[in-house]
């Protein structure tokens, strides 16, 4: 390594290879992924998010919600994501193609939010979310700066929060969600991955009769195969 020029070329080649392989490689594979057109439903999935929800995603990103919440459901036999009701199927790349800034997240201090609006049997509605954001809970901070407390002049606002107890305000006053709170909640309510793409269909449950049903290997093998099939399709 006495030749400085060759040394630098080597360094450059190393970084270029990994960048080319990982970044350009996946771009070549998935960069042109298109929405999936469903003949029976007569429309494409994933559906585009509304302008309000798209702005809400920016609020989600700039507040750093991803520090505690993931937005990626792992496949049914990998972790307990499905059993927790976070989603019936794994998240796939196609779910995110319309998102300007996918918020996959890396920490699950709070629950996963991939399919927040599609939870069964009942999902949180706008009022629940507003209250959680305003009042907080033992496990969730209250973000009062997303709301405005103001005096009621004339009729009270249709958007005013009905809070009692800890978050209640003085008589004659009301709590109104700011525009940011409204977009954030619109975004959270747009998080729904109910549609099944061909590549995301839940794996067939492992045959119960199989003698080694308790072994992880028997689950993993079909999983790996189907992953390969999906890759081949792409």
């Amino acid at each position, binding site marked *: *390594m*006495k030749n*400085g020029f060759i*040394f630098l070329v*080597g*360094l*450059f080649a*190393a*970084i270029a290879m*990994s*960048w080319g*392989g*990982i*970044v350009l490689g*996946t771009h070549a594979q*998935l*960069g042109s*992924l298109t929405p999936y057109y469903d003949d029976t439903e007569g429309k494409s999935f994933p559906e585009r998010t509304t302008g309000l929800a798209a702005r809400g995603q920016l609020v989600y*990103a*700039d*507040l*750093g*919600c*991803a*520090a*505690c919440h*993931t937005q*990626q459901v*792992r496949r049914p036999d*990998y*972790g*307990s994501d499905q059993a927790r009701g976070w989603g019936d199927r*794994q*998240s*796939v*790349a*196609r*779910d995110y193609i319309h*998102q*300007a*800034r*996918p918020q*996959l997240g*890396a*920490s*699950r*201090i*709070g*629950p996963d939010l991939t399919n927040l609006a599609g939870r069964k049997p009942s999902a949180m509605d706008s009022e629940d979310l507003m209250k959680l954001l305003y009042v*907080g*809970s*033992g*496990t969730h*901070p*209250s*973000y*009062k700066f997303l709301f405005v407390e103001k005096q009621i002049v004339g009729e009270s606002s249709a958007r005013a929060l009905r809070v009692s107890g800890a978050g209640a305000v003085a008589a004659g006053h009301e709590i109104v969600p700011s525009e940011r709170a409204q977009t954030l909640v619109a975004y959270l309510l747009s998080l729904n991955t109910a549609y099944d793409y061909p590549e995301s269909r839940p794996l067939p449950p492992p045959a119960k009769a199989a003698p080694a049903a308790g072994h*992880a290997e028997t689950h993993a093998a079909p999983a790996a195969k189907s992953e390969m099939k999906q*890759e081949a399709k*792409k």
Partner: protein
Amino acid sequence: MTNDSTHATSAEVTAIDSQARGPLCVLLASGLAWLVISGVLGVITSIQLHTPGFLADCSFLTFGRAQALRETSFLYGWIANSGLAVALWVLGRLGGSPLRVLNWAVAGALFWNLGLTIGLIGIGTGDMTSFGFFQLPRYVQPLMLIAYGAIALPGVLAWSGRRTSGLYASQWYGVAALFLFPWLFSAAQIVLLWAPLRGTLQAVAAGWYTQSLWSLWLAPLALTGAYYIVPKVAGRSMPSYDFSSLGFWTLVVIGGWTGGRHLVGGPVPAWIATMAVVACSMMLFHYIVVALNLRIASHGSGTAIRFIRFGLVAYSLTGLLDALSSFRGVAVEWQFTLLATALEQLGLYGGISMMIFGGIYYMVPRLTGRPWASGALTSGHRVLVSLGVVLLIVTLAVGGWTQGDELLNPKLGVGTIYTQLKLSLMIGTAANVALLAANLFLLVNFIRSAVVCCGTSAAAESAFRQPAALEAHAS
């Protein structure tokens, strides 16, 4: 308590050192100031973890933002400034002549820190990018890229104009760190900020950046100092030195391919994760070579070598646990938990920062020509920071282990799991307070040492000797 390696007899202060004193002290002072700032933010985020209501109403410091601020000031404030100071100094010494164009480094440092300050204000007001290790807002990134070039210039010139014929391991690492950061920083900027990739490809590119930053910048910066100082303090030649180039190229060539380590089971092509498993395991070769080369660190005595010894153990452990945690069977439990945070802290604080601390303790007396101002502050820093790091990592790891285990059990709600973590998280706050106190000691000690030196710089200047041959051969 002070001892040999933190003292520099006046005979050891060379022209190379005395001319670099001012500029390198600027870098070090900014690095230590950022370390204290990130320490304050570390305390805030760790309190927020167990008491979610803490400062929640302050929109600048929601947990997500405070976390991004802490991480950014730690990486781009502390490690960048101090790591570059150590690397420049080592490259200057091994180049055999005084560092040139140090004015550029000073100007670069000023603009780098200006950019970082604006960037942090940007994060606080909602402009963060939401990519890990890459949170700085788009508008300061080009400025920081240019400023980085200015800081790195003296190091590159010292290397290209070196008077010695061969290259030493610390030079490879130093030059690699200086040369590669602008490439990966700009490559990430293009695909994430200027012409963003589509959907989850952003996560893939962000993963590539995070892991490349680790293996092509953070690790080389720390190893530059370690490879230079360890043989000098231990007073022995480096064992298995022939392997060191293989270890170096393994890190550089394989490092970037570990990018999918955190995307196991995610909505990205499965080969990304598989590649990361393979790459993380291959990287073990690098960690083994570093451990073999630097095992002589067990011999020397003194503050500097003690820090580096701690750093090397943590660094090797990081490599081992990285490889282990990349496997799918392990990742299913460790992913998304505090164990991932513990592992990150093990690498960044236990590994990289401790090695840089060692470098600082070795370098400052040689820059100033005097021992550290206070032995008590030196040993206070060493004891507190070691305790703090161990406590932080152990509590996060224990908490993360239970969290990972319980997350696999769908009957336990996420809220319940979180509530059970509170004890670990509270001990984590204590660890963060200890770290903050320790780093305040270091900052005060550094300021006192630097101020004393400035008052009597003329006396120290006269104390140098002709050094090149002696300084250049040890690495």
